[in-house]
């Protein structure tokens, strides 16, 4: 029975029961009733996701260490990094906003990058990361809350608003965020949870013979 139900898919949007089929690379399967995307077969899914994630992790550090931009008024210069912005809002008694920005723009993307690396790097080396179901759950839970691409747009909007009144000097983090947005989008596009579950389970069964 376990084998039989393993081939079954219930659409997560309309609960239509279907059997999965082998997909060609780059294709996706959609539900015939509601049109939801059921699963994709991204080319080299695990490898590419890992590569993009490791690259994104490095850029992420740069995006948080360097200032986003600075403004200059009559010799007075003021620059901020993202974390300084969060701290500044905290000091201005806007704690909930400060916390929200910290969670969505820093903690969630960081957790996402760490979880993917924790899952995929051992898998690539032929090992099973301990308690991988927990990390898959974290990943699924955190995914909607990482908003780097929205932050990127926010940075651009602020930039335009600032140029009306100040001389604005773009910082390293501005470029880092632009690259990070692209890398995260690429990682998300090649990530295939279904495939990774299958790979992790297969390895797990090899390691623990019943």
């Amino acid at each position, binding site marked *: 029975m376990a084998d039989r139900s393993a081939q079954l898919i219930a659409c997560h949007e309309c609960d239509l029961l279907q059997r999965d089929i082998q997909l060609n690379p780059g294709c996706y399967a959609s539900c015939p*009733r509601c049109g939801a995307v059921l699963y994709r077969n991204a080319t080299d899914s695990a490898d590419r996701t890992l590569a993009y994630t490791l690259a994104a992790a490095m850029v992420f550090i740069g995006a948080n260490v360097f200032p986003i931009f600075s403004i200059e008024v009559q010799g007075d210069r003021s620059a901020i990094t993202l974390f300084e912005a969060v701290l500044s809002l905290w000091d201005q008694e806007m704690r909930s906003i400060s916390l929200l920005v910290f969670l969505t723009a820093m903690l969630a993307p960081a957790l996402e990058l760490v979880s993917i690396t924790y899952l995929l790097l051992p898998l690539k080396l032929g090992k099973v990361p301990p308690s991988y179901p927990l990390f898959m759950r974290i990943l699924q839970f955190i995914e909607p809350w990482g908003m780097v691409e929205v932050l990127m747009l926010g940075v651009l909007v602020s930039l335009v608003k600032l140029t009306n009144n100040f001389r604005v000097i773009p910082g390293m983090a501005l470029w880092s965020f632009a690259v990070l947005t692209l890398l995260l989008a690429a990682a998300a596009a090649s990530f295939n949870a279904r495939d990774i579950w299958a790979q992790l389970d297969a390895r797990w069964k090899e390691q623990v013979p019943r």
Partner: protein
Amino acid sequence: MTADAPIAAARGLCSCHVCQLVSRRTRGTGKAHCPRCGARLHFRKPGSVQRCWALVIASYILYIPANVLVMMETGSLITYRKDTIVSGVVHLWKTGSWMIAVIVFIASVAIPLLKLFSLTLLLISVQRRSTWNPRQRTRLYRLVEAVGRWSMLDIYVVTLLAALVQLGTMATVKAGPAAVAFGAVVVLTMFATMEFDPRLIWDPLQKEEFHD
């Protein structure tokens, strides 16, 4: 697709909300857990409609202070202004930043309203067990899910400006109380979208009712 399409819940099969594994579960029995990942199994998200309504109503209420109160205070040597979300957009438009005005309008005004009205429509149609155009309604849900996060735009803009422009008497930007209310609207509507179970849109096509 007709009414006798194979529905997982009707056959006692349940797909895990974490790992999507389909497993058998006898209806009416107590707690069941996914054999693969250990998550609780539910045929449908429990209390989906009630929880979603609660979050949507809370968002409607907070939407009022978010729009009435001050979002951002901008002060310099010559000017001082207090902007709500809408007056901020109007100011951007008048000062010639049309592109930015349109972007901010979409993110801060259009998307939150679209989310609230869409979720209300979906909730009412589900409660009335409507069979009207389920495919289109599922699409609407997917749209709400996809665009919801972009409302955070204004929160980021206010944060960056308020943190950066602190030049004493020369120029200061302060975040106003509307930012807190608006942030809450964004978070609550995101939770509401997550609580809503799109499978409920399709259930009225069946004779049986599924819970939990």
